[in-house]
């Protein structure tokens, strides 16, 4: 059931990103809905769920929005998902402030990993300016926080009924 919901969330992220890239291309480059999925999976489902969600989301992102060499986003998101899962098992990350922090750090680590991996494999990528990176982290953190809250409320409501 978990895998089905994660798969569905990835498809929704893909469609959302597609629509956003049509309506507001600049904003689409700032927000990363695929990252939000793996962070949520890592926070609520642990390291294995986080990394598998990361691989799936990363590969879909790579294939549809990446360059000619695919797999950088998949590998970066695999490691980020694993890291979030490990952190969630060791620390209390249920509140809004810790989650905000996790989203910011996850965005920064994801960006750093992608650019470093590309450099290691000698694949040219566009350098992300610090301001753009910060904007990406803030956007992901804010949207992610609202989304996580919404999903948590829905799940709590379902459990009650």
């Amino acid at each position, binding site marked *: 059931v978990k895998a089905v919901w994660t798969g569905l969330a990835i*498809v929704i992220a*893909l*469609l959302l*990103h597609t629509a956003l890239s049509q309506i507001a291309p600049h904003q689409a480059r700032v927000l990363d809905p695929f990252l939000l999925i793996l962070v949520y999976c890592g926070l609520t489902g642990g390291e*294995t769920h986080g*990394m598998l969600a990361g691989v799936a989301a990363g590969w879909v992102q790579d294939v549809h929005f990446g360059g*000619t060499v695919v797999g950088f986003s998949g*590998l970066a998101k695999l490691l980020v998902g694993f890291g979030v899962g490990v952190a969630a098992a060791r620390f209390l990350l249920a509140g809004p402030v810790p989650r905000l922090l996790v989203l910011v750090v996850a965005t920064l680590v994801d960006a750093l990993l992608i650019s470093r991996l590309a450099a290691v494999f000698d694949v040219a990528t566009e350098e*992300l300016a610090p301001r753009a990176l910060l904007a*990406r982290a803030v956007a992901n953190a804010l949207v992610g926080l609202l989304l996580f809250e919404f999903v948590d409320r829905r799940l709590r409501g379902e459990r009650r009924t």
Partner: protein
Amino acid sequence: VAKVIDTRKGRLLLVALVFAHLVVISRQVDAPGGGATLLEHAIFVMFSPFQRLVAGGVHGIRSAWTGYVDLRGVREENRVLRDRLREVETLLQERQHAAGEAARLRVVLGLREVLPLETIVAEVVTRDAVPWFRSLTLDKGREDGVLLNAAVISPSGVVGRVVEVAPHAAKVQLLLDRNGAAGVVTERRRVTGVVMASPDAGTGDLVMKYVSALADVAVGDVVVTSGFDRIFPKGLVVGRIRSVGAPSGLFREVYVTPSARFDQLEQVLVLKGTTPEPAFDEAVQ
């Protein structure tokens, strides 16, 4: 061993997945242009219909809204367009005269006729959604006649080349991508070079490399494709020279503002068939 595997399942899976990724990436890097892996192709084929559906919905809503908004001010626009049409008609007569003269000269000089390009019109489904790479997804694919490495152009200029093809979708690497390039020549003095994305992040500029330090290039010169890369046919507009760098050794760098409006692309033209290879003496020249 079974106990160790059971307790460290997550970490073992992580190591296996990291290793698999490194192998997959290395294989692609080792074989540039070798095409997509089976997994990449499967994901692209599986999800592109959903993307087309969403893009179609967005296009529909946008055109309905634009249609409504455009109704206002139509009379004024009509008047401006009629004036513009008169100007263009005059210009067309001059151009027809020049084209006729050029055709006559071509016959006299024994030059080859420029081949008309057969194209496929494609809608842009997604564009530039991640900051590291510059790419587009189109709603036309292999079954519509789109081929791998086909040149993609817009009415204003060269856009890029097809790097992945599914039955009804294709991924395009923009000329602005750091891994994209095109062989070019300046229209005025026929100075050759290669354009690629400018290393200055976010400028949206192209840089023309391998231009001789002695070459006669000037700001405002039009840069067109040379056809030597065998992807882009010769004569397609790439952009205009914005600035000319100081010579560094044998070469100088020339900055080019692209003609194509990459951030406003909605429809593009995909060239059908392969680009004719330039004749040897033409390439030497």
